[in-house]
């Protein structure tokens, strides 16, 4: 006997956000990337439309990272001192369709670059590659508040995704992306209320909710992944039920969180029973990404090309 599938009907829809602008749209990107637009929970194709697959953005820095573990260093070290080459290699060798550049060099502890230098780097990067860009600051509020508006202006018309607006520091960046036609990452500390409040505060400044992406903040596998997962899931359920103030795509900084932890970094000498570190970090990053995809992640910012490839295959298998 055939069993009838019980299908959920949702009234809400996740906003579509497009990153990058082609020449026809006033930019210089070779293509654009669109995320969001879902009308159902992840991969429940029968319940609604899932027009855009989750995408992977390769994370690069504008300076040599000082805390990336050996396994990542082996892959990228040759290009660390030449971030533009690093970017080019991600696109060429690893088929990155989207780059996420962290302007860490601005940080007082990591080179303390001048804001103008960061803007110059953004300009150069836009020339070097044609892929759409996600641009994030160094995390030092004072410095970011001076530098990011300059970078935003430097990338005017390219429809980048800028980050991150925080509850305590959202006004400067919001005003900049509003003026320069970019989209904005709103970051909240694994807190559904603050996620929504921040979206309201930013919308109150005149930036359309359709130009927002939520960074819910995540913990990697074993470090609070399930907590992040449930916040994302609740957020998505509220959005599909009609709450427009949480109906934004998610961006998850998977690489950044996964490669921080002991399990991804420790050598086999320290923990022989854990197996070779060469595979461990990659598996950790890929596993974290796979779980978050199920929670509704739209953009996965990743580091290791092998992990990225595994996740890409996983996404394709889910969508085929």
């Amino acid at each position, binding site marked *: 006997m055939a069993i009838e599938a019980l299908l959920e009907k949702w009234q809400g829809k996740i906003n579509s956000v497009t990153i990058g602008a082609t020449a026809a749209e006033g930019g210089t990107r070779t293509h654009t990337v669109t995320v969001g637009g879902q009308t159902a929970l992840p991969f429940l194709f029968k319940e609604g439309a899932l027009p855009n697959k989750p995408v992977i953005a390769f994370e690069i820095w504008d300076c040599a990272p000082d805390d990336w573990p050996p396994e990542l260093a082996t892959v990228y070290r040759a290009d660390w001192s030449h971030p533009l080459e690093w970017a080019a290699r991600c696109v060429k060798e690893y088929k990155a369709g989207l780059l996420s550049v962290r302007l860490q060099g601005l940080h007082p502890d990591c080179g303390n670059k001048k804001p103008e230098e960061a803007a110059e780097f953004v300009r150069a990067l836009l020339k070097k590659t044609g892929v759409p860009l996600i641009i994030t600051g160094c995390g030092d509020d004072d410095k970011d508040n001076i530098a990011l508006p300059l970078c935003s202006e430097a990338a005017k018309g390219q429809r980048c995704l800028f980050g991150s607006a925080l*509850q*305590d520091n959202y*006004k400067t960046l919001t005003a900049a992306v509003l003026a320069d036609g970019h989209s904005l990452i709103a970051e909240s500390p694994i807190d559904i*209320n603050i996620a*929504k*409040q921040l979206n*309201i*505060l930013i919308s*109150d400044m005149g930036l359309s909710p359709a130009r927002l992406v939520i960074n819910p903040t995540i913990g990697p596998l074993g470090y609070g992944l399930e907590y992040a997962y449930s916040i994302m899931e609740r957020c998505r359920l509220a959005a599909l039920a009609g*709450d427009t103030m949480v109906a934004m795509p998610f961006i998850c900084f998977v690489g950044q969180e996964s490669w921080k932890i002991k399990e991804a970094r420790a050598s086999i000498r320290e923990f022989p029973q854990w197996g070779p570190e060469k595979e461990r970090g990659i598996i950790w990053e890929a596993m974290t990404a796979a779980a978050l995809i199920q929670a509704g992640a739209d953009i996965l910012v990743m580091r290791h090309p092998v992990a990225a490839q595994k996740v890409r295959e996983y996404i394709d298998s889910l969508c085929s």
Partner: protein
Amino acid sequence: MAKLTVKFIPDNKTVEVEKDRTIASAALSAGVPLNAACGGDGVCGRCRVLVRKGQVGALATGRMSLADMRKGLYLACQTTVQSDLEVEVPAESRLDMDRLSAEEIDRRLKGFYGPSEDVQSLEAAAPVKPAFTGSALTEKLYLELPPPTLQDCISDLERLYRQIQAQKDYIPEHAGLAAIRLLGELLRSAQWKVTATVGKRYGIIELLDVEPGDTASRNFGLVFDIGTTTVSGQLVDLQSARVLGTRATYNKQASFGSDVITRIMYAQKEEGLEKLHQAVVESMNAITHDLAAENSIDLNDVTCVVCAGNTTMIHLLLRIDPTYIRREPYVATANFIPVARAHEAGILVNPRALLFCLPGVASYVGGDVTAGVLACGLDTADDVNILIDIGTNGEVVVGNKEFLVCAAASAGPAFEGSGVSCGMRSSIGAIQKVTIDPKAFAVRYETIGSAPARGICGSGYIDCIAAMLTCGLLDKDGKIKAIDNPRIRATGAGREFVLAAAGENGCQADIVITEADIDNIKRAKAAIYAAVVSLLKHISLDFPAIKRIFIAGGFGTSLDIASAITIGLLPALKKETFVFVGNSSLTGARNTILSEEACATADEIAHKMTYCELSVEPGYMEEYMAALFFPHTDIARFGKK
């Protein structure tokens, strides 16, 4: 041990104390009221004094800068007496013990509505409230007894009882030995014409007192609302059921801490309970004295006292240790207090007078809430109504004639002017209404008594935050926007907005609202709103099911509904839904003293009310977090998109 002398100026009061006592304790002995919101813990920084002469020992405190100490300023509670001293108490360190103004009392007790406020008074909006029947809790009966004869030779007491039974439908079952001892002589010298005072202790009739002659027309009662901040009292003619006068004063316990928790902690200190007990009784006796003098009545003719107060206040009034109210699982020593003598609690009226304390429900829902339910008639209505008593401890009751549930939420003292930088209680000079011009951000404010502004009271803060939100000075998170305007100043701890500058309209110092103040108010309003929503969820109801929301409390009487909705303290419902009831707890106490039936009803209400402990309610914290936004994270609830 040698005594040292401490002289306080400008009071010119001198007191002898032992070496190493604090200046604060010397001030207490000298009867100089010092402000001590923290109860002497050295954290509120409000008891600054200037040491003019003599040696002191000062404990380190983050509340005083080196510059202040060079000027001779010290925190009285952290500074010890080391030699004879001369200490000046500046005006701002003084606890304002003046009685409230007549206007203020009027506002607190009868309800205060601004001319623009479209709200109905209790009488007009609440036909649910029945007139209670039954006679007052104490009655005076003039009796003319037939003198005993050989044929009619029952005892004097039985003779008295027989006469009472002949005139009333009850017979006393109980009498005090003191009254009986005097009875034989008294009846005969009064030629068998006497006035008997009878009291009704939940159905048991007691012969309280016998007086010669006819004094039946002189029978008075006192009702009190003992609040954490304010004590209100009302003198009632029990014969005619008329209110003769109402007075309010600050609860003198305020010098031991501004909230119940600090007071409970103080009660655990040596002599702490005794001091707290004395302080509240003094406040009540001051009111009693004034009301009696005003009406030229003899305190011996006050035969009954009814008190409504939160559980802690009643414990302290009766000198019952409140320690366990504060400790999990938060248990009071007694919620249903047996009828006692007013005298036993130290209330200076007729020594035989009865003292009723309205029964409480739980450790944080006291007899004041029971009285409020009685006054609003929640327990008799067909429709489901809500009573919200807004204060340091906010209480919420939901129900109708079939059920009553209640909860308490700790809102903190921000609404009562504590823990906020320019906060003050709602007394003379408090900014209570604020409007801000959306273009130039010019501020117009009203102060209580139209006096020069001295600070901001709870309703002033609500009005001010609502105005700042409306004119775009504030984001929904409560952060002041960086707008180039002389009224907006950046400080080390965020921005502040100047409501009144020093020198403006006789204002002594700048009156500002800081981002930290706004955060405090945000947390207080979130606690109250979350309590209301959680309690409704607990019983599977929602606002559309609610007919009326009664708002009570000294603070509530001067609350602007529209502003309260703008900041998300109250739900966005039609204005007609809200009814100000002013001090509903005093009204309930008055109903009780005038009617045995009301007294029995209060008892029933307290028995039938179900207490919901929000701290273990899973949804409460969730609701509270979501309410930490102006007006709310779920903005759709407040009709916004």
